[in-house]
């Protein structure tokens, strides 16, 4: 087996990230990405003028969820970096928009995936980035050289 000959190559050290429990995180991100993408697509095409800010944010969050899903699933250094940025973006997004939607409810008359810290999605948008970041930092790519 090739992978037992050189177990210390960088690519080898990063594969643990996309195995085991990592695959469950990817599955949950895929579900969230599908749900958010479908919902925001529907909202923007049918009733964008009702809540343009909320629906635009929904679309952004959906795109980032899709990026995060693939970045988490793909082994390698670049994917790891992309995943870290995408998951941090989601954590900050759910915290900022969650607080914002409580302070200025008029702006968010229609709910988004991030409204009230993701209450419409069982707070999974709030919990998942924390688990995702823990997993990513636990499985850092090996240092170069």
């Amino acid at each position, binding site marked *: 087996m090739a992978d037992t000959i050189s177990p210390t190559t960088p690519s080898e050290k990063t594969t643990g990230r996309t195995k085991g429990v990592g695959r469950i995180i990817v599955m949950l991100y895929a579900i969230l990405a599908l749900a958010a993408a479908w919902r925001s697509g*529907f909202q923007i095409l049918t009733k964008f003028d009702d809540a343009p800010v909320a629906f635009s944010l929904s679309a952004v969050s959906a795109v980032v969820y899709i990026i995060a899903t693939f970045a988490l699933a793909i082994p390698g250094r670049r994917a790891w970096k992309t995943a870290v940025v995408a998951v941090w973006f989601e954590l900050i997004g759910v915290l900022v928009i969650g607080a914002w939607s409580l302070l200025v409810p008029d702006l968010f008359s229609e709910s988004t995936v991030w409204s009230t810290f993701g209450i419409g999605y069982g707070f999974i948008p709030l919990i998942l980035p924390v688990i995702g970041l823990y997993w990513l930092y636990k499985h850092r790519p090996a240092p170069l050289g």
Partner: protein
Amino acid sequence: MILDGWFYTGATIGLLSAIICIIATIFRNHPADSSILSLAAVELYLFVYAIYAFISPVPLNGPAWEFWGYIITALILPPIAFFWGITDKTRWSNLVMAAIGPTILVMIHRLQVIWHG
């Protein structure tokens, strides 16, 4: 009726699937047949629900596009979980598949709300 027999049947299948997959996660270190079959049961239920929704005389209360979009999304989730679950054959394959049952439960509730709400 949002909480009718169709909802409870789907909810039961979804929850049973999740329970079966979680038990399989504990006792099997490979993708268990029972997990895969429970996903197949969820998929079969969704097919029957979709056919029933198509031929039923009860009109949709909400937008048809949203309703059928949800059904299509629900229908592709079990195959995604199956293929993603079995590409890495470990204990965790079962937990990947366990995510589907509760998701489908929520989606069926949403479908019922669009249809009858």
